């Protein structure tokens, strides 16, 4: 039963620096790559190998202490150069130096439908492709011993300056289909795939067999898989669903069609501080220095792995996040502005019309990281609701989390949301509340209390 959903609520943030649809070669080969356990919620990593050990692509580097079968493997062949540790010896990253040999561990090439679920799960686990599959509620790595009621793939990203998946994925129809076939085996329910109704469906999605195709149209967060789940088949208490990103699905598809863990991906380099925003072919966890070299203006910038709403801040020599398909570079806003609240504000973007920038609805903005004000108690109403196209009262949910009221959180639908879904609420909040952080605390509390 495919659906056509038109969403009115939401907000497209008109940032400057959209990537031009051109593939660019980075100036030099990737120096190093890193797997960051910090990209995953509630993961306790345990190293599988020691510093200095040699790995091939697909060799385990570390595993999940609580689920030892969930392995994280090297996307390239090379040497484990360093295990970076932070406070209290918490592991922050496994840095691998590629040797340029491109040697890979060989996995079985087979039709997933014929392999049976157990064998498919085993292959995914051994190849290190399993962590690409995420579970809701809680936004954690899927538990291999569970079966989800459905699997959801959002075929487009509506976040600010997000990469165009139609462009990234084109020409990889067979690998994508293979990925869908794998997902079909993993669930007893449906595999749901959505596309952006604002454009005609691209070939990669129209040729897919075996998935329910849904059309979503509207401003961000229409492309968020959580919003789509809420409209297609909402998560109830006790239910789990899995989600996966289309590019990550290609990695799974290639695993079964070629028998290797080939974690190459295309990322968009975006943002107002990028001289020439374009698309780059790289590999999961790649060092961003070679991509950024000579392509960034000024030096007081923030480099974000991901988009401006949900991404992670990295330094100029940092690494791409496990799930990131985008790097955004925007100016830091760590300066004072004289009577900024009173200025007409022709160059300040706001969802309301208190700044005169509403005179120029088509303008693209060079937004910086300034908070534009201090934290306050919540005053203005309907700001959260107007950017969340889900059947949820976000403000009441946030307040229930602050009060640590477990029953209320459950009743108000905390299982249906993760940070990215409420990111726009945080953006729009006049009172500068850290909505995503509060939600993560709530999810962590629910995970430990309810499980």
């Amino acid at each position, binding site marked *: 039963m495919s659906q056509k959903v038109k969403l009115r609520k939401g907000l497209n943030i008109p*940032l400057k620096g959209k990537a031009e649809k051109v593939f660019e070669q980075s100036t030099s080969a990737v120096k190093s790559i890193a797997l960051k356990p910090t990209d995953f919620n509630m993961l306790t990593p345990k190293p599988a190998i020691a510093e200095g050990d040699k790995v091939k692509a697909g060799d385990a580097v570390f595993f999940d202490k609580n689920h030892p079968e969930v392995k994280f493997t090297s996307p390239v062949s090379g040497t484990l150069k360093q295990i970076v540790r932070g406070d209290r010896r918490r592991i922050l990253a496994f840095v691998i130096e590629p040797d340029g040999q491109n040697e890979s561990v060989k996995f079985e090439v087979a039709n997933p439908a014929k392999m049976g679920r157990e064998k498919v799960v085993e292959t995914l686990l051994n190849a290190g492709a399993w962590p690409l599959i995420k579970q809701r509620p809680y936004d954690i790595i899927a538990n291999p011993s569970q079966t989800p009621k459905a699997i959801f793939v959002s075929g487009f990203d509506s976040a*600010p300056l997000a990469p165009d998946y139609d462009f990234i994925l084109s020409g990889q129809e067979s690998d994508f289909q293979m990925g869908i076939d794998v997902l079909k085996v993993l669930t007893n329910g449906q595999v749901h795939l959505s596309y952006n109704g604002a454009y005609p469906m691209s070939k990669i999605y129209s040729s897919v067999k075996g998935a329910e195709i849904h059309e979503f149209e509207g401003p961000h967060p229409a492309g968020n898989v959580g919003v789509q789940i809420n409209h297609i088949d*909402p998560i*109830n208490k*006790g239910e789990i669903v899995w989600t996966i990103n289309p590019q990550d699905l290609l990695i799974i598809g290639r695993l079964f069609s070629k028998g290797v863990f080939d974690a190459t991906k295309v990322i968009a380099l975006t943002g107002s501080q990028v001289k020439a925003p374009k698309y780059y072919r790289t590999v999961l966890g790649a060092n961003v220095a070679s991509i950024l070299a000579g392509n960034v203006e000024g030096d007081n910038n*923030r480099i974000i792995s991901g988009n*401006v*709403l*949900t991404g992670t801040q990295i330094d100029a020599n940092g690494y791409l996040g496990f799930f990131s398909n985008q790097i*955004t570079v925007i100016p*830091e*806003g*760590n300066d*004072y*502005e*004289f*009577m*900024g*609240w*009173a200025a007409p*504000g022709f160059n*300040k*973007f*706001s*969802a*309301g*019309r*208190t*700044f005169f*920038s509403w005179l120029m609805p088509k303008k693209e903005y060079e937004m*910086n*990281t*300034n*908070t*534009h*004000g*201090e934290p*306050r*108690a919540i*005053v*203005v*109403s*309907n700001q959260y609701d107007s950017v969340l196209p889900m059947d949820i*009262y976000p*403000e*009441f949910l946030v307040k229930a989390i602050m009060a640590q009221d477990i029953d209320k959180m459950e*009743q*108000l*639908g905390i299982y249906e949301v993760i940070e990215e879904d409420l*990111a726009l609420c*945080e*953006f*729009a*909040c*006049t*009172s*500068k509340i*850290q*909505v995503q*952080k509060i939600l993560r605390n709530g999810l962590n509390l629910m995970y430990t209390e309810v499980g």
Partner: protein
Amino acid sequence: MKALRNYIDRIKPQFSEGGKFAKFRSTFGAFETFLFTPNTVNQGGVHVRDAVDLKRTMTAVIIALVPALFFGIWNTGYQHFLAIGNNAATFGEIVCYGLIKVLPIVVVSYVVGLAIEFISAQINGHEVNEGYLVSGMIIPLVMPADIPLWMVAIATAFSVIFVKEVFGGTGMNLWNPALVARAFIFFAYPTKISGDQVWYGAEQMADGFSGATPLALAAAGTYNPANDMNAFLGFIPGSIGETSVVAILIGAVILLWTGVASWKTMVSVFVGGALMGFVFNASGMSCLTWYEHLIIGGFAFGAVFMATDPVTSSRTETGKYIYGFLIGAMAIIIRVMNPGYPEGMMLAILLMNTFAPLIDHCVVSRNISKRLNRVKTTK
């Protein structure tokens, strides 16, 4: 500006923790952020944020109040000269008289209110909130021009301390502070805020001049419909900011266009009032037609500036329709049905402020039971 910034940066350490004037941290912070938007950046969450903050939002409301304030100043003078029978007063004289009457009330309201805000921020160690900037402007606008200043001071102090600060400051209060200030005077000094003599600043009325407000006339059943246009434009006696529907509507347009106030609340109040006014008029209980109810007294001012206060209003979108409608309806019911005082808007809003959390509770409960039913139907 660089020099000013440098100066602030130089003295800032003295006001920070461990500094000589650390006690005055909140006060310093309030002035610093007034002059310069802070240089704080987003950490761990979104990397960009909407440019709007509470200062900007409150500024928009104050701008929306300005037409009502200006008209109120003029009208205070106009009514005064009308009352004393001086038809030859120039525009300048009218405005001067108005300024002399109104400005002190504004100043007293701000000085008393902000002083308490600063002190309590200091005591509680939090930042000074912007909320009072609006309350401080609304309080004078809902007072009669003749109100003694000490009464304004006491009422303001009462409402800021007992309605706002004891609940935790801006964003935490249950009732609209400006309305409570008015209600305080209303019940503590009833003769000073109603009756026929409080609007003109005149010891001696000219012969044949009736000092009654249209509302009082309506309560007595002697309202003259020929007065409608005057009531709409605002050439009638009444509280400083409430008389001119035109000035209030200009404010309403600003509030709605900037998105600061909810059109749902505003429209619902007018709908509720119109409907109730129509019912009473049709049943013969009120001599006013439905639209006359909306243009006289404090109805329009309450609907536009007070009912829409997001903190004390219903916070769910569905709730806003119910909340607004009931305010409008209650205001007219109180006006018509009670024998004591002619105005009902103040009490209607305060009553619905009290019930707004209940309305929200019902709306949210519906969402909760919907979610629970979903589980039942899927099993």
